[in-house]
């Protein structure tokens, strides 16, 4: 069993097994209904077989076939009803699980939310994780449920026949055991590896093709398109080969399964003939009943090998989800500090875990209440790292970052009362404008919302929208431009009303005129607050009190814009370049 990858993946699992125990009742009902569907299907054929055999003996009294008639009708109605109910109950159960799984996924990700983007840089990991949850849904519906149902049926068949004839019971234990266990395991062993390989090839092809379609302009301009196509067709053929091999095995396997099933039916006929037949009697009526009952059961079994083989595909999802951190429940101590709020950075050193390069090397900085500070530096110089350190999401390796004498990392979620953040690409949730704004203050009245929209210069625009504040931000025809998104983010921050605002390159990607306009609004609206503004060029820099340049993790230039212009040749150069003078 340990050789089957799915069992390996499930060994230390926190995502599938624990949930099977939740809502146990509906799970048991779903499986019971699943078993009953097939029991009713077999029952229908059993009673009809018995009914016509009995009727063919032309009994004197019609009442003798009355019971089989009623049962035939009952089973005829029960089978579709059970099946319908089973599907409803099982889907309902799985969706309930999904709610739990989603919440769990959210909780796992919540802890590291702030550096999510830097931590999981590769690809669309969020989309991937959310897909993983739906994969687990499928694992339940397409693999685990059918298996449990077939095991139930197996037990009924073996025990039922075993009571009538122990030898027949044992024989069925073997024949159906081969169908239910041996063939699926064989299938996983032979095709499981292929299935994994196929998925790898598929993922690779997906990545490759995306890569090259994104770079299509270069392929066309370089005149090398056909070269790429040849490569692509070659890898596509590799995938096709695996696919064909798998399909070939599956056809052969399904044939073997049917032949084994035939063996089961033939055994029943032979057993029936030996037990009930041989001479004319009322007992021979049972032979047709048993034989016919066997046919509908094959539907439950034929899907098993495929279901078992498919479990290999879920491995990746399980591994990925189980690799996520376990949510911790730590409450930060209550912090009580009072205005004015001063930030003090003393000899801050920081190196990312598992890397060797020191990002910050002994940074000292005083940020007084109401001060406007700009932080500049090349990409990779540690500007953004500094921002997460100031907010207390990371702890310096040595040195300290304190807000009124309390380390910012001690605040936990309370930090949001003191430090607000506007980052590069402000996120707007797919809900109404009002809801997006109320993230800043859930109790805000509509007047307050209009007030902040007025202050950030969006009131007129929102007034023109059909549903005004209730307009969904992603509704057709309405697209917020870069500048407008930043203004909305600013409005949220105004509602939150924290004394210190951290701006992490808030205007990158805007054209200079829009950028200047956004900066002007930020400066007027936040004039009473402490501002820490990380930026990549010098647009609007003259509005700041203090400017620092970080290079190689250290302070390189520091001073007011006027001082720097006077004393630093390098600053003058950069400033001139930026202004195109």
């Amino acid at each position, binding site marked *: 069993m340990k050789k089957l990858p799915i069992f390996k993946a499930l060994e230390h699992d926190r995502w599938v097994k624990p949930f099977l125990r939740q809502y146990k009742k509906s799970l048991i009902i779903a499986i019971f209904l699943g078993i009953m569907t097939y029991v009713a299907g077999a029952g*229908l054929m059993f009673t009809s077989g018995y*009914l*016509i055999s009995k009727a063919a003996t032309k009994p004197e009294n019609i009442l003798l076939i009355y019971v*089989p008639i009623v049962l*035939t*009708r009952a089973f005829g*109605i029960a*089978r*579709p*009803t059970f*099946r*319908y109910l089973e599907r409803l109950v099982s*889907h309902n159960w799985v*969706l309930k699980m*999904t709610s739990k799984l*989603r919440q769990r996924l*959210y909780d796992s990700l919540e802890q590291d*939310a702030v550096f*999510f983007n830097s931590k999981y*840089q590769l*690809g669309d990991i969020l*989309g991937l994780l959310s897909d993983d949850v739906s994969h687990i849904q499928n694992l339940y519906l397409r693999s685990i449920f059918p298996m449990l149902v077939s095991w139930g049926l197996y037990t009924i068949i073996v025990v039922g026949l075993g009571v009538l004839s122990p030898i027949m019971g044992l024989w069925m234990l073997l024949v159906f055991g081969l169908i239910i266990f041996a063939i699926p395991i064989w299938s996983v062993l032979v095709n499981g590896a292929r299935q994994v390989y196929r998925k790898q090839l598929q993922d690779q*092809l*997906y990545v490759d093709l995306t*890569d090259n*379609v*994104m*770079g299509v*302009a*270069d*392929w*066309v301009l370089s005149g090398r398109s056909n070269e790429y*196509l040849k490569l*692509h067709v070659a890898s596509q053929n590799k995938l096709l080969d695996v696919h*064909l091999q798998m399909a070939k095995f599956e056809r*052969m396997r399904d*044939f073997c399964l049917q032949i084994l099933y*035939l063996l089961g039916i*033939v055994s029943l006929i032979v057993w029936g*003939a030996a037990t009930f037949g041989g001479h*004319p009697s009322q007992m*021979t009526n049972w032979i047709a009943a048993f*034989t016919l009952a066997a046919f509908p059961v094959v539907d439950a079994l034929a899907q098993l090998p495929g279901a078992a083989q498919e479990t290999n595909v879920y491995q990746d999802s399980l591994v990925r989800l189980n690799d996520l951190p376990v949510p911790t429940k730590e409450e930060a101590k209550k912090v009580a500090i009072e205005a004015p709020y001063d930030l003090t950075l003393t000899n801050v050193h920081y190196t990312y875990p598992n890397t060797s390069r020191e990002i910050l090397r002994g940074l000292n900085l005083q940020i007084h209440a109401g001060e406007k500070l700009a932080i500049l530096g090349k*990409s990779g110089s540690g500007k953004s790292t500094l921002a997460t350190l100031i907010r207390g999401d990371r702890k310096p390796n040595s040195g300290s970052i304190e807000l009124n004498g309390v380390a910012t990392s001690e605040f936990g*979620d*309370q930090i*949001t009362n003191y430090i607000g953040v506007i980052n590069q690409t402000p*996120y707007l949730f797919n809900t109404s404008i009002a809801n997006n704004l109320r993230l800043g203050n859930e109790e805000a009245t509509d007047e307050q919302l209009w007030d902040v929209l007025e202050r950030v210069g969006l009131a007129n625009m929102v007034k023109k929208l059909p549903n005004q504040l209730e307009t969904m931000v992603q509704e057709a025809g309405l697209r917020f431009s870069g500048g407008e998104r930043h203004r909305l983010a600013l409005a949220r921050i105004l509602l939150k009303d924290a004394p210190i605002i951290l701006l992490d390159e808030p205007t*990158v990607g*805007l*054209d*200079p005129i*829009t950028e*200047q306009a956004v*900066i002007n609004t930020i400066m007027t609206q936040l004039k009473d607050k402490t501002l820490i503004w990380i930026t*990549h060029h010098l647009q609007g820099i003259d509005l700041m009190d203090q400017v620092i340049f970080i290079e190689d993790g250290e302070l390189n230039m520091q001073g007011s814009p006027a001082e720097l212009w006077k004393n630093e040749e390098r600053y003058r150069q*950069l400033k001139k*370049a*930026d202004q*195109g003078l």
Partner: protein
Amino acid sequence: MIDRHLFQLTGANSIVRKLAVLEVLQAFLIIGQALSLSWLLTKLWQGHTMDWLILLAFVACFSLRQLADWIRGGWLENYSSQVSEELRTTLLMKVFNEGQAMVQRQGTGSLITMALDGIDEVRNYIKLIYSKVLTMMAVPVIIFVAMLFLNWQSAVILLAMYPLIVLFMIVLGYAAQSKADKQFGNFQHLSNNFIDSLRGIDTLKYFGLSKRYSRSIFTLSENFRKKTMNVLKIAMLSTFALDFFTTLSIAVVAVYLGFALLRGEMQLFPALGILILAPEYFLPIRNFAGDYHATLDGKNAFKRINQLIDAPKEISEELALTDWNNDAELKIKDLNYQYPEGAQIGPINLDLKGNLKVGIIGMSGSGKSSLINLLSGFLTPSEGEITIEGQAAKTMNIPDWHKQMVYIPQNPYVFTASLRENIAFYTPEATDEEIKSAIHIMGLDDLVAELPEGLDTIIGQGQRVLSGGQAQRIALARALLDHSRQVMIFDEPTAHLDIETEIDLKERMLPLMQNKLVLFATHRMHWVKEMDYILVMNHGKLVEQGTYDELAAKKGYFSQLMQEMRGEIKDEETTDL
């Protein structure tokens, strides 16, 4: 259900003929299987001992029927694979020959989904559709005829069920559809909501709401479940109806047969035969219904792919152009471009001669990039006259123009490939010396030193993500290696870089741009002064053109724009410029 494109596939006729023969054969095997079993059971019922010969006949029919399945599966698998791979190659050929225009129109994501998942759906569709339709046509009919011989009354009962099943499935299918449509808005919204919350999780954290939001995730998901269940309750009814009528009709026939036997109107053998054949009679339609959704998906994918393949090709001009030189001339008269959404670019009138650095400036949305795309031939003008080297053209989509052109966008694409392959993309035959020298000139030495395997390290998406500046340097190194290209087109190459990187890059770019035709869209002011000639765009129109000094002297829109960009005019009065 059947698409006319299906008949145009290569080998469609021959596979249909082969399958039809197999289906008929299989129908007879099904009847053989049923009759031999009934016969066997009847003899046993009469008290005879086991007739091994009949049992053997049953085993043979059963096995042969499964064997036919095996063979048919093989044929269909091979045929559908062959056809779908042909389709895929055709589609990709179109994408990689038409290039950007098609990708921009369709979107990268949708093209890739189409070429990979879409084609797989088509393969499945082809695999299903021929055999399911043929089975539906052959098997029930032949079984029906066989049942007529056994007991015509039962055969008629079962036949009567068929239209009833189809009718109910259609009615319930529509009901489910309208119910699903009604809820679709909500449905979509809720399923997107989860991923939306994940994407915005940092924003929630910044507002201190993330912990509490966990509960909302659960509640929202539960609401989603309730709504989904309401749709499923109806959607699953059509399967229920199918199930109900098939099983019920078997029960009805069994009871009918029971009474007929009781009255002595028939023998056990035909009664058993009918009973065994009844489920087989309904099996094809049940299978068809089971695969209905896969078939539908495949059909839609097939249709979309055929639309893409049949879409008219972007027009291109086959002109023989020499490499751009000091005497070359490009004249553009009354060029217009109309976006499908309504925005209009133009009229553009231009006359460029010889090696020049041409700056294109304007606010975002003023049409800089559109003009660049028109001049590079990625967009086809709606109207206008182009004269290049004395030859008239309708578009700049000219292979000879593309051959001499370097195009560098704001975010040049870095392939997931080795640094060497990336840099030598336009010149695969470049030597290591040349590559290293290009790396040095473009200031990539630091990057190479950081890479564990130097030039052979794989970079790009999903491997080692490069900064914007590094990607830009790689694009420039590519251009540097390919000396033959005389036209350089830049679309906002440095705006997103930090000021120090920008200045450093500028120093490295200027020598590259000498003695070439350069078209350079930007809103960074320091570039403007480097240009020999400047085009000023506003609201899609080319409003001013001339040298820097000419434009500055004019004190028109250009001067105003420059002032504003420096932040010298306060925003309130300028936002609607």
